[in-house]
């Protein structure tokens, strides 16, 4: 994967060294800023048409009223007040939305921490221990295996592995380690985290790997020559330089897990609350404004987390 340089070039087209005069002459009629707009334009239009405009609709609808079978385009905060129902009255107990987000954030944190740990070391191995480009490529492709099957097939596949009569349990019982099958292996927070880690570690590996291969090897040699131990090199050289990858990977994982309800539903036996699940239930009951209100809340919270993370690292500067 030597795309890092390409990305660098695309990101700063004005900095390409050695662009010859002939080419420069051709584009003189177009100002550089116009070219930049032209380059960003198509993506911007797609973004506008399929993200920003629908998002504006979602926000508008979230303030509408509704009945059993239709949306009523009159201003109403019902979607929000219903959502936060009991949040003050039930104190110190958490209300539904509070419990739901606590669970979502907990799962999110666990998955983030584990995928970061695994992803970092997988990327480290690929970047520094695998010398051949072909092997690097081949091994990164291996990380995509979890995506080769559909959600339904994965769900069915976990039961024979983790189920009450599954491989793991029967193996453990046979070796005499346990007497009773472990119930928490499936349809539990454990299995949800396991499945999410299994799926999304890849999203950590790729950006971190991308950052790591761009680290100038002479920096590591310099650290070594200066007498740094392996650990010191890791903490003072590699981790700081891999930070953009870490942050990008974290954004991927956190945004996906915050919105996930399918994996959480399937692996949690539909007994674990998820922010996305509330939206789905509302949509299925044709309560679109309430669903939209929940979507706005989810978006706001996710946005808050991402903003906090980008405060820690200025991704644009680091790239």
């Amino acid at each position, binding site marked *: 994967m030597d795309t890092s340089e390409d990305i660098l070039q695309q990101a700063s087209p004005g900095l390409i060294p050695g662009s010859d005069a002939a080419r420069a002459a051709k584009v003189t009629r177009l100002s550089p800023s116009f070219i930049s707009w032209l380059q960003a334009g198509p993506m911007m239009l797609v973004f506008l048409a399929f993200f920003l405009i629908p998002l504006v609709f979602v926000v508008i609808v979230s303030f509408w009223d509704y009945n*059993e*079978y*239709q949306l009523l385009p009159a201003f109403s905060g019902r979607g929000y007040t*219903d959502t936060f*129902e009991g949040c003050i009255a039930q104190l110190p107990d958490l209300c*539904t939305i509070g*419990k*739901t987000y606590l*669970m979502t954030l907990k799962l999110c944190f666990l998955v983030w921490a584990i995928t970061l740990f695994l992803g970092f070391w997988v990327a480290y191995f690929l970047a520094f221990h695998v010398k051949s480009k072909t092997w690097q490529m081949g091994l990164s492709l291996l990380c995509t295996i979890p995506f080769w099957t*559909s*959600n*339904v097939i994965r*769900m*069915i596949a976990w*039961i*024979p592995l983790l*189920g*009450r*009569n*599954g491989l793991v349990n029967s193996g453990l019982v046979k070796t005499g380690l346990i007497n009773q099958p472990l*119930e928490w292996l*499936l*349809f539990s927070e454990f299995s949800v985290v396991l499945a999410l880690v299994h799926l999304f570690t890849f999203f950590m590996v790729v950006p971190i790997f991308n950052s790591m291969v761009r680290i100038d090897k002479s920096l590591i040699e310099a650290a070594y020559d200066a007498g740094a131990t392996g650990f010191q090199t890791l903490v003072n050289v590699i981790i700081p330089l891999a930070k953009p990858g870490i942050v990008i990977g974290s954004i991927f994982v956190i945004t996906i897990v915050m919105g996930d*309800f*399918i994996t959480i*539903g399937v692996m*949690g*036996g*539909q*007994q*674990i*609350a998820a922010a996305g*699940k*509330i939206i*789905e*239930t*509302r*949509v*299925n*009951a*044709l*309560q679109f404004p309430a669903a939209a209100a929940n979507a706005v809340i989810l978006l706001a919270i996710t946005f808050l987390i991402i903003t906090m993370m980008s405060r820690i690292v200025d991704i644009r500067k680091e790239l």
Partner: protein
Amino acid sequence: MTETTKKTGVSRRTLLKSTAGLAGLAAGSGAITGFPYVMSAEPKVLRYLGTAVNEGDDISKQCLKDTGIKIEYITATTDDVTKRVMTQPNSFDVLDTEYFSLKKLVPSGNILALDARKIKEFDNITPVFTKGQTPGGKKIGGQGTAPWKVLYLEGKDSKKFATSATEFVTLIPTVYNADTLGIRPDLIKRPIGSWSELLNPEFKGKASILNIPSIGIMDAAMVVEASGKYKYADKGNMTKEEIDLTMKVMTEAKKAGQFRAFWKDFNESVNLMASGETVIQSMWSPAVTKVRSMGIACTFQPLKEGYRSWASGFCVSKGVSGAKLEWAYEFVNWFLSGYAGAYLNRQGYYSAVLSTAKAHMEPYEWAYWMEGKAAEKDIKAPDGSLLEKAGAVRDGGSYEDRMGGVACWNAVMDENDYMVRKWNEFIAA
């Protein structure tokens, strides 16, 4: 009831469906009908929106053969069918949906009632739908959205359900069944006779219910009533207090670890039961059959408190008129003429017109499926695979016994909005 093979939430499929919907909108809006004098050459095509229950390939093939009408299935879950009628009424012609969703569909004005006088077999439709009793005269429980409460409209474009028979029929009945708990007799090893067993601590971590709020709460209510905790005036239309009470009982059971998992689609329920993750759960008849066909003992257990029933039928989109409307009548008439009914009966469902279905079944098949008699020969599914060996008896027995034992019907409550919020609270607890 939501019977479908896959449900993965918002997915590529949904996206494809909405795209198809847009295309359908273009077709339905008349943009493609500006060709004079080619009416006779126009192929007879009906877009058929429904759950997977009635949508057999064999049915559409036979229909094409008999009537020349080509059926294009649009398959979705019950929830998605309702959503689609609301948001894209021009994306389908014929709608096959459940009676309980009528409370939402009829006021929306997006569907058209059919004229009973144009349905040849209308007078032969089972009295289950028209009178709320079995052909043998047994009175059927009417809690919830029982079909006879919402079968007729006051007028052609009326949005009010008529209390007595009119010619404007909301849904022409097609298929229905009586649902109960499925159990694994080999793992339970004792007789089960009541809904209250679902929350019996003996089955801690081995029970399951549906994660479709409107249906799940009905099963929960059957359990609450069976355990003697409360008697509902109408399980299908609870007050807020009743919803609170029902959800409280369920929440306590959930916190105590009673449920292994909740299920949402057909395959999930089959997997849970076949793998032994659950030994007792609310289930659908064909799912029980599927588990059994895997060689695993599974019983669709009749319970003393009775069954929770559901029923579906046909209507058309408001965008259907002219020749297309005539084809729709032709199709509905064909559907009730026996082939489809026999096909559904052989899957363990019930057909709306019994006499025509009977004519299309072998006497031994009729005796097994409808009369509760021991099978004289091996019982085969419509696709020819073996369902039961000779000598087997259907769980719950005859049509009279099963439909006569119905206690309540799938429903949409007046307090639906509150119930959905409480259901989310239950999941989060």
